Structure formats: C-alpha cells, structure tokens
C-alpha cells in the first residue's frame, strides 16, 4: 500500500470516495508520522483524540453519502487560529494557557466541510518573525537540509510549523496567516505551495490579531490543485468580520487547467534587487520561459514604490500590533505577573509574557503612534501605502493579468544565522512579499527549483484583487513544468 501521508488532497479525496481507505486510517497514519517527527517541533499541540473522533464522524458521513468537500482530510492548524476547547497560544508565553470558548470562522468552515484536526502548529510569537525562531515553544527545524550537511535550517516564518508539517508529510494541508509574507516565505523555504488570498477573502474572526489591515489567512499544500480545493472551504463572507468581502466564492479548482494563452504577465524591474543570488535570477528566468511556453505574453513593468514597501510596513504593522496587543494585560486571560500596583502588574506581565521581538515591535508601534510623531511616521507610511497600491492598479489597468516575481531573495538559512545583531537583516526576507499585503492583493508562492545546495526555491504570482483563479491557472502551468519537491526524511 502507498504511504497514506504522501497523498495529495485530491488523491486522498478519491481514495476516500472509492472507500479504498478510511478517514480513520488516514488520520492514524498521520498521527504516527507526527509522533516520529517531534524533532522538527512542527506541532506545539497534538490532538490525537480529537483527530480520531473527527475521522470516525467522517467515516460515518462517507458511509451515509453525506460527505463534505474536505471529508476526512487531516490538516494542521496554525496556533494563531482559535480552536474551541483546544489550547491556542499564538506561541506566546502571555497566552500559554489560553483555551478559547469559540472557534475561528476559517477553522469552523474547514470542520463544516469535513476536515480532521491533527493538532496546532508552531509559529513565530504572535506571527512576528520570518524564521519561526521567536516561538515560545522553540524554533521549528526545517525538514530540508543542505546537500551533504546536517546544519539545522529554518523553515521560514511566521507559519513555520505549518510549512514544515506539510513538507514533511505530517498533514495533507495546514492553515497559515500572512501579514508580510508569513505564508509565502515559509512555503518557498520548504518547497510547497502557499497562498495569501486577497484581503477580505477569508474572515479574520477568531484569529489572534497582529496587524489587522494586513493579516489574511490562507493554506499550505503540496500542490496547486490542493490549494484551490482547500481555499474554497476557507474563504467566504462572515458578518463577524466587517472587513470580510461579501461576494461569492468561486470553484477555484475549476481554474486548474484553464488556458493561460494570451495572458499578459508583468515582470517588475524593481524586483531585480542588488545582490540577488544568481540562482534566484535563473529561477525567475525559468518561470518566465514556462509561462511564455504556455502562450502567455511577458511584459516588463515598473512598480516604482517597491523599495518603500518594507519601511512603510515596519511602521504600519508595529503600530497596529501595539494597539492589538494592548489586550494582553494579565486581567482577562493568560499570564499574570504580580506587581506593587496595577500598573506594575501590567508592566511585569507584559515584560515576562512577550518575547524580545514582540516587545521591540510593540515599542516601535507605541513610538510611531505617540503624540508628536504620528504625522511624521504613521500618516506618512499610510500615504506611501496608497502609492504602493496605485503602482499595482496602474499596471493592472494596462491589461496585465498577473505578476511573476521570486518569492524570497535567498534559500532557507541556518537557525541562529540571521537577525542576531541587526533586526533589519531578518526583515529583508520579506522584501518580495510585503508589497502584496500593503496593496491587499492575492499572492501564491510555489516551488520552482532547487538551489546548488539542494534547497527549494520559490516563485510568487501576484494577482488582481479577488482573482485567485488566475493564480491557480498560472501556478498549475509552473508546477507542471517545474515538478514537485520533497525533502529526504532524516528525522
């Protein structure tokens, strides 16, 4: 029998329908794989009892002909999504014991459609990081290694546990959130598919908030088709999130195989950054050639404000974070550290409960919003954001269907290698992804090749607002040409 953990969602769906495999067998195979892979630290909470109970219900629904679109599909859930009666920590000490009394809208939709929860996956604390090294539960170790070496590598972040779990066959898909690249960068580092949908496509209700005008949920999968299947379940209007879009969710899977002939694909010259690795340049050329080969028209475009996206992000995101994280004060949930009065209690709780990166970002956010600095920093950054979005609008108005870029400037790096002395060094990881959040657009990252050291490298497709379908059609073309990539198990 084939290894059940290496199936795609589409293959597992067929096998479940034909009853050659049961949802319980599928869940058990994954629970065993997770137990053997604890060295990766991909899951911060395994939920085997819930998984078996949900899988049994799936088997009953399959038997009675009531199967949902994701019936019996075992998935991992980023620990930023509130799961009812299941500990949800955002991988922060300040929420180390929080057990939500409610379910996030995105996960509720996944369970409604029959998915099975295997556990909660590791992430950077409050999703603040690009390497999954800021988690209260310790770093995730990538399932990938450089050729002939055993240096532990980062899986990327912030959704590093979800990315590692999908790449290492510890689930068929996982949820993530993306504020500046937190789905697409780890997808690129681990050789899988990651999608950040249009802002408003998925409800943010029940997801621990980081930067509310940028946060968006999306999936990790091993194929483009699987991404289309699961996104359809995750997306949709939710009256409990006023920024959620009230428009129908298309059948994304139907876009797979749609012809791309005649589509205009933009290649932004500003993404040819100084010092870009030759292997990334080459990967990009391959992507261009594959799309051209499928009949797309390649056009050079300009997005002149690209270089300002990352600095504007490092004002807007910390500002919103400082406001969102004000709620962690030791009163209503989580950690409390006593003090001589209530202010000392707040200060001690937040000093102990937040890690270094979170403390720094909250302080930056507090500073740029403080009296006398608001106009110089926050207001200016929001104006620059208008210009970044306008760059994209002008390109799309000229008939460009989608934009092709590298997903990251480099392949994955080693644990502890970056950001120790200079925080900016780590932030530069998101230079190609952060523009998309600033403009609220959909982005899809997918593997397109290996570096000379044998590590996966990803491309990114950026689409028009609410046109995820075009990204799936183009992504399928690249996947067919590039093939799929899997790490050699060492764990």
């Amino acid at each position, binding site marked *: 029998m084939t290894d059940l953990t290496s199936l795609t969602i589409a293959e597992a769906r067929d096998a479940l329908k034909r009853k050659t495999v049961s949802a319980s067998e599928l869940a058990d195979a994954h629970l065993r794989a997770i137990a053997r892979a604890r060295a990766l630290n991909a899951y911060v909470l395994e939920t085997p009892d819930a998984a078996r109970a949900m899988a049994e219900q799936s088997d009953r629904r399959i038997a009675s002909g009531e199967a949902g679109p994701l019936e019996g599909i075992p998935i991992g859930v980023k620990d930023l999504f509130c799961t009812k009666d299941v500990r949800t920590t955002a991988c922060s000490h300040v929420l180390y*014991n929080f*057990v939500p*009394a409610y379910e996030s809208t995105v996960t509720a939709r996944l369970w409604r459609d029959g998915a099975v929860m295997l556990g909660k996956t590791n992430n950077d604390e409050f999703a603040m990081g690009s390497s999954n090294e800021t988690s209260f539960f310790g770093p995730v170790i990538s399932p990938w290694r450089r050729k002939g070496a055993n240096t532990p590598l980062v899986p990327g972040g912030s959704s590093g546990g979800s990315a590692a779990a999908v790449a290492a066959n510890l689930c068929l898909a996982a949820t993530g959130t993306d504020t500046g690249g937190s789905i697409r960068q780890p997808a690129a580092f681990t050789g899988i598919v990651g999608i950040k949908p249009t*802002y*408003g496509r998925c409800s943010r209700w029940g997801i621990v908030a980081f930067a509310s*005008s940028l946060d968006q949920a999306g999936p990790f999968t091993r194929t483009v088709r699987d991404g289309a299947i699961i996104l359809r379940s995750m997306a949709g209007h939710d*009256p409990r999130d*006023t*920024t959620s*879009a009230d428009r129908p969710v298309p059948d994304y899977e139907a876009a797979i195989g749609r012809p791309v002939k005649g589509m205009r694909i933009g290649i932004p010259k500003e993404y040819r950054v100084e010092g870009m690795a030759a292997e990334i340049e080459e990967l990009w050329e391959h992507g261009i050639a594959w799309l051209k080969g499928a009949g797309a028209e390649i056009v050079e475009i300009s997005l002149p404000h690209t*270089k*300002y996206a990352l*600095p*504007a992000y*490092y*004002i807007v995101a910390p500002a919103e974070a*400082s406001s969102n994280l*004000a709620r962690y*004060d*030791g*009163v209503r*949930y*989580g*950690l*409390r550290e*006593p*003090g001589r*009065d*209530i202010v000392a*209690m707040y*200060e*001690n709780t*937040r*000093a102990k409960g937040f890690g270094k990166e979170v*403390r*720094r970002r*909250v*302080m*930056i*956010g*507090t*500073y740029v919003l*403080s009296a006398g600095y608001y106009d110089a*920093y926050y*207001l*200016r*950054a*929001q*104006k*620059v*954001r*208008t*210009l970044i979005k306008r760059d994209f609008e002008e390109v799309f108005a000229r008939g460009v269907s989608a934009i092709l870029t590298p997903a990251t400037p480099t392949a994955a790096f080693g644990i502890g290698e970056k950001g120790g002395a*200079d*925080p*900016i060094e780590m*932030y530069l990881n998101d230079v190609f992804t952060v523009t998309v959040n*600033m*403009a609220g657009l959909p982005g899809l990252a997918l593997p397109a090749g290996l570096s000379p050291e044998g590590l996966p490298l990803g491309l990114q497709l950026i689409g028009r*607002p609410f046109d995820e379908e075009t990204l799936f059609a183009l992504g399928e073309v690249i996947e067919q040409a590039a093939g799929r990539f899997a790490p050699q198990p060492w764990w």
Partner: protein
Amino acid sequence: MSVDAATVRRIAHLARIALEDGEVEHLRGEINAILDFVAQLSEVDVDGVEPMTSVTPMAMKKRTDEVTDDGYPEVIVANAPATENNYFLVPKVVE
C-alpha cells in the same frame, strides 16, 4: 530621528512593558536601527496623497446596535488568572 535612553524608558512605560536597566542601551540601538531604516520614506513625495484607510474599496457594513450574544459570564471569565463571582480581580486601583 533617533531616540535616547530616556525616550526608550518613556516608550516602554507607554507600552506598559517593564524594562531592566541593562536592557535600555541594547533596545535603544535596535530601535534606532529600525528608525534609520524607515527614514527612507522621507524621500517619497506624498503631497496631495490620501493616506490609506481601507485596502479594498468597500463600505463598512453596519448592523442594528443591539445585544446579539450574551448570558454566559462564567465562560467569559474562564481563562482569567483571578476571578470572584464572575468578576475579574485586579490589584486595588483606588486607595
């Protein structure tokens, strides 16, 4: 713009984060590195540009101002570090 040690302490207090003396200098360096990085925004001509308020053009939905969800205080306080009779307990605020 760059911050001095007194400003670092003031920001930390505004953010309600206790700082140890030994942390101030290090944080000052990190915050200034970030402020240097974001300073490049001053090159951008933003005259006449509206600040972004909504990334997708949509009118915010409104609903009737009424209670839609209530009646379970014990669930609300279930995660609190200290409670009494379904109230959150905090250190004394007024003497």
